[in-house]
């Protein structure tokens, strides 16, 4: 019932507003001629647009400085530094264009408003020289931006260095599973048909010797060594997910049936970043950036960037996924599955 009352009230209010507006329009038409009214409107509207522009510029300024301290801290990867530089260049270029075109738009609107004493000055409909200028200049600017962009793109998508540490990250509804290759630095084969949520979350091939020492973390926590390049092997068990690494300025889809990769070099440890960001709770987060169902928003992973020594200490405590029953996981970070009966 209350829904109808709400709708009825809204309707009534709108009707009253409309009647007032109509009445004011009729009253104005009695007071003055159409021409006079249009002239008055022109002046009011032209001025309002200028006021809008000035207040808008002020608001942009305010918005910028009130949000700056909520932005991401400096880039945590080497590749990200080039990214931030390129972002700045693009921002300056587009910012200049934005400002100039808007000044012209609102200034012209104000300056050339119709009043009694002026007419559209003259018949001026085209000018090839002008068209040529404003075709070429944007084209050149774009060429420069494309050049910077492609240079960075080539770096980001280049093959990972040979010494890069390989880590697999697999998305499923709605969490991330991380697999480390163990001492042999080789990930064992896996097959989606062997997946079993209780005993073999990734469908790893237990007959492949490379699988024997693979470590699986089901809590979506990834440990990386600062300064060491890492190559992510990205996969998905069910629908499309996306490994979003905002602090490293990177992102890559996780597509079922297709393996994608991404490599980068973490440059700042988690501990250092807590100081840089002045946030004691700071943590590198992996966000799922491709809509994957109702739990999409909760598909959170984390990354811990640490020194080689810290990493070594951590990895030593991890048990292989196919570990014998006698060696339970020592650290809660990696929830190794209980013993798997070798079929």
């Amino acid at each position, binding site marked *: 019932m*209350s*829904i109808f009352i*709400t709708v009825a009230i*809204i309707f009534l209010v*709108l009707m009253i507003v*409309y009647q007032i507006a109509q009445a004011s*329009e009729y009253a104005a038409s009695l007071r003055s001629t159409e021409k006079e009214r249009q002239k008055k*409107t*022109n002046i009011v*509207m032209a001025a309002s*647009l200028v006021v809008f522009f000035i207040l808008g510029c002020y*608001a942009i300024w305010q*918005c*910028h400085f009130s*949000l700056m301290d*909520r932005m*991401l801290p400096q880039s945590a990867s080497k590749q990200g530094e080039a*990214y931030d530089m390129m*972002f700045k260049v*693009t921002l300056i270029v587009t910012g200049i264009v934005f400002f100039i*075109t808007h000044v012209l*738009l609102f200034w*012209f*609107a104000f300056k*050339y408003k*119709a009043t009694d004493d002026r007419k*559209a000055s003259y018949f001026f*409909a085209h*000018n090839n020289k*002008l*068209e040529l200028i404003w*075709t070429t200049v*944007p084209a050149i600017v*774009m060429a420069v*931006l*494309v050049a910077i*962009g*492609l240079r960075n*793109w080539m770096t980001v*998508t280049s093959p990972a260095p040979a010494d890069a540490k390989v880590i697999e990250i697999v998305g499923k*509804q709605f969490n991330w599973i991380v697999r480390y290759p163990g001492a042999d630095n080789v990930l064992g084969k896996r097959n989606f048909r062997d*997946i079993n*949520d209780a005993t073999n979350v990734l469908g790893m091939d237990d007959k492949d010797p490379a699988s024997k020492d693979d470590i699986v973390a089901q809590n979506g926590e990834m440990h990386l060594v600062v300064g060491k390049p890492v190559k992510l092997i990205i996969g998905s068990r069910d*629908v*499309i997910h996306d490994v*979003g690494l905002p602090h490293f*300025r990177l*992102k890559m889809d996780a*597509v*079922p049936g*297709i393996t*994608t*990769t991404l490599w980068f070099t973490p440059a700042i440890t988690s501990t250092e970043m807590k100081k840089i960001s002045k946030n004691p*709770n700071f943590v590198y*987060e992996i966000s799922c950036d491709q*809509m*994957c169902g*109702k739990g999409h*928003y*909760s598909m959170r992973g984390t990354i811990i960037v640490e020194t080689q020594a810290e990493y070594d200490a951590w990895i030593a405590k991890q048990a292989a996924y196919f570990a014998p029953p006698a060696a339970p996981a020592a650290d809660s970070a990696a929830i190794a599955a209980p013993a798997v009966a070798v079929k």
Partner: protein
Amino acid sequence: MSNEAIVHGVHDAHDTHAHGDHHAHEHHEQHFFSKYIFSQDHKVIAKQFLITGIIWAIIGALMSVFFRLQLGFPDKTFPIMEKFLGEWAKGGKLDPEFYYALVTMHGTILVFFVLTAGLSGTFANLLIPLQIGARDMASPFMNMLSYWFFFVAGVIMFVSLFIQTGPASGGWTTYPPLSALKEASLGSGLGMDLWLVSMALFVVSSLLGGLNYVSTILNMRTKGMTMTRMPLTIWALFFTAVLGILSFPVLFSGFVLLIFDRSFGTSFYLSEIFIGGKALPNVGGSAILYQHLFWFLGHPEVYIIMLPGMGMASEILSTNSRKPIFGYFAMIISLVGITVLAFLVWAHHMFVTGMSPFLGSIFVLLTLLIAVPSAVKVFNWLTTIWRGNLRFTPAMMFALGFVSLFISGGLTGIFLGNSALDIHLHDTYFVVAHFHIVMGVSAFFGMFAGIYHWYPKMFGRFMNKPLAYIHFFITFIGAYLIFWPMHYEGVAGMPRRYYDYSAWESFKNFGTLNSFISVVVIVVFFGQLLFVFNFFASIWKGRKVTTMNPWGSTTLEWTTPINPGHGNWEGDIPEVHRWSYDYRDDGHGNDFIPQTTPLRPGEESH
């Protein structure tokens, strides 16, 4: 069919004499159904598209209010939502499953039903025959079918909102496997089937309309209306139709394959999937294939939405500046450029799908190339108002707002089109801000400008002006307040399509900003209701139009009677002698020369 045959039917067409009288007769006796419901009059069909579009816009906007309530106030409950959404918002708390359904429906409705059908359906139907001097479309019957296919598509989509498992919830892009597998989400069940059926019918509607628009523009221009004398609205609507005809079939093929994967066990998009506790038998498909097929329409679709607004803004800026459009030919060439490039940039939506980096580079180049014709258009609009004599009618306000928003939204496209920057910004709020400004609000501004400008032609009355100005400022200020700060959230990596950010250390610090945005959304929503009320009330209560040409415009639609019947002109269709932007002194104290005025001795055609 000839112009006369269209209006009088084939039999009457043989009887070509004295059609003037005959004409006036015929339309008084039309039955209510054939006049207003199953009408073949392009003007009535235009109104049908517009009113249906407005109703869908209200539904789509209301959905955004609901999910903005969730985003702005994730820890609060809103009992009012339960009234509207029932079990989906039990206790006033939106269900995550339904949050995604709302997001999906909001996108589908606004992109397809409002800004495609509601926008080009309205203005292509209204303006093409009126501005090129034709009595109706090439095939009025097909035109009627186009509306009714759209209507049925709408009914099916509407029904899907009420089924037990809820409507489709995989995003408006409905990427498989999420959309292909019932196990993946509730919305991927019956809701998705209805979505696909509805969209397939929508494609049919769009093609029937598009083919009609193209053939009408090419074949049915009145005497003297050469292609280069056509108003830019017609050029823009022409390329809109071309884009639709060439790209919608590809989307359709994508949907057919998806239907096969969903219902008939094929593996076009599915491979190596373990879901719902078991491994599926499908192997060998590619989920990315769907994205290629989808975006082959999806990107031209952006221009299907933008071009009509560009055309109308050009027309309205020129008319109300009392000055010819600057660089008419440059405007046409840039439209051609945008149309061609629109087909060559689709993969910029897919930079992070793992596609070949080399292919990515090509798409970066082509994408940033599209900035050139867009820049040309902006500079031409600015030069059009330069040294003009500007009348700030409500339509003019919205046209100026259109230019501002198009610049703002276009510039952020330069970030996203560059793959090296997209790799961080992809699927964040930066994207949300970008496309809402450039193809959402900006296209809406083009649409509002068109409605305020051509309302007198549609209904023989004016919309209320004070309300129109209030509507303009609420929308203009509101749009910037909503979407400008979202860029910052995007740069901070905040992903789109999240139900709640409070568990994320990196994104939860935008809580107050999200609340602010949601409050503005509610204000802007009620601002739009003001427009809707103004629109409907003015049909009966608006100030009456007393002159044939209230805006002092050069184009042909203003040579028809104030309330034109089916056939548009009483008597012969006027002949055209000059281009559509002859705004200058006509020697009798007027500042414009209608297209129908013969060239003066010694005067050269444009």
